[in-house]
């Protein structure tokens, strides 16, 4: 059965192309949510195996969304990869607070090879 990935990011164009890439080269079922305020509802309905979460979004930011997921018994264990244009390359692999909290942070722009291996690793572990 294909794994379910939920992308929560307000950048509609980016999410569309990311989904195309994920669906083309991997056995994934991808759902997009461009409005962070609907993220919890969408996640509850979709029940993803992994979440790709943007950090800076209008309405609720990535941190708020992650907190909502943590408070939901069915979502709290779902691994999250934070994709953000805020951090620079090199800032992500230095044992940041995010990593300590079990959240993987990847900088935008991200190469598909990096993202794919990250997704595979996390899904294998969980």
């Amino acid at each position, binding site marked *: 059965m294909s794994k379910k990935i939920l992308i929560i990011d307000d950048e509609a164009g980016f999410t569309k192309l990311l989904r195309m*890439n994920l669906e083309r080269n991997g056995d994934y079922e991808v759902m997009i949510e461009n409005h962070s305020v609907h993220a919890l509802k969408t996640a509850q309905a979709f029940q993803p195996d992994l979440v790709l979460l943007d950090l800076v979004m209008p309405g609720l930011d990535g941190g708020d969304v992650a907190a909502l997921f943590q408070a939901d018994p069915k979502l709290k264990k779902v691994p999250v990869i934070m994709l953000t244009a805020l951090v620079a390359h090199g800032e992500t692999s230095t044992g940041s607070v995010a990593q300590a909290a079990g959240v993987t942070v990847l900088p*935008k*722009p991200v190469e*598909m090879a990096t993202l794919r291996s990250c997704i595979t690793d996390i899904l294998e572990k969980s």
Partner: protein
Amino acid sequence: MSAPEGAKTQRLSSKAISAPPEQILHDLLAESPSILASIVDNLPVALFVKDADHDFRVVLWNKKQEDITTIPREKALGRTDFHMFSQESAQYFRQVDEAVVRRGKLFEIPEEIISTPGGGDIWLKTTKAPVFDTTRNRTFVIGISEDITPQIRVREQLKELNTHLTLANQQLQETQLQLIQAEKMESVGRLAAGVAHEVKNPLALLLMGVEYLASGITENDPNLPEILTEMRDAIARADRIIRGLVDYSSSRQLSLESHELLPLVENALLLTRHEVRKGNINVEVIFEKDLPPVFIDLAKMEQIFVNLIINAVHAMEGRPRPNLEIYAYATRIPEVERDEGARTARHLRSGDEVVIVEIRDNGSGISEENMQKIFDPFFTTKATGVGTGLGLSVVRKIIELHRGRISLRNRVSGGVAVSLTLKVAPTVQDELDKGPFKKKQ
């Protein structure tokens, strides 16, 4: 029998009352010929007469003329200007004298400079007129000169002072523009992280597109048109924001031109998009329909909006439902407060057509005490590193350079409203009305 002295005076007086004025003068000159010389000598203006039939030789030269030319009467009488003044000055006087006789009418020389034999240059205002003696059939040129050297000196000094003042003013304006530029570059530094974020997003999309295309595509891949459209849009978006930042950073000089306000506000919002989004701020831009263009320096006005938006973002930090409103409408100035600026033509006046822009937040507001100091340079309530406190003082300076007005007030519902008053750009018709064919009011 001779009449007593008193009776004689009495007789002259009674005659004076009844006689026509020219008769009085005639009698007076007949009784005392030296009185004419005395009158001429005591005139507060320089007077001379030249004989046009005899090479314009001097026939009369009064005391004041002696004083200002430093040429004594005995050296002037019977001589021509060529004996007394430089060749150049004499040549000029001769030309004027000949013209006066030829035209037969008065000739005014508002300013003429002559070099005196005493060595100094003096400025004269001279009026020359022809006098025709019909009985002897002779022509004279009478000249009256007034020494205007002190006035000219004062004028020259004023001119010099004015030059210094203009220069100092230019230097001041240059310094102000440098300060504005310095403040702007500092804000570019503050905006850089946000702008980088805004550029990284389209870059991320582009990379996604490249990855898709690089992994091999078939000719009839249904995703292809959409991917290419998205990539094109992303390039345009990154280009727009980078160009916006470059435009924002450039332009040191003040260049006032007619511009629409809305695109400018949109660009300022693009540059501050990251901060606004991070602060979770709802933005409402409400512009009156058909808002006339304003007379502004695009880059500097954008600097104002970036500054005011960032201020509003900071003021709303941690507040519930942060809301930023940018509201603009056109109106006419009903009445300008009587202050220094209002008296000069270059500032706003009653009846001027203006655009009012209000930037309203629902943040923490400004205390009465801080409101007094809000435009002071280096006054800030922000933490070190967040702001230098130059922002609003520079904003006000830019508004002053635009001959506009800025005011701040606490809103009744909470937060602050900053109001900018900007002159509407002159229309072609306004320019025509200002021209030489302007209708009289």
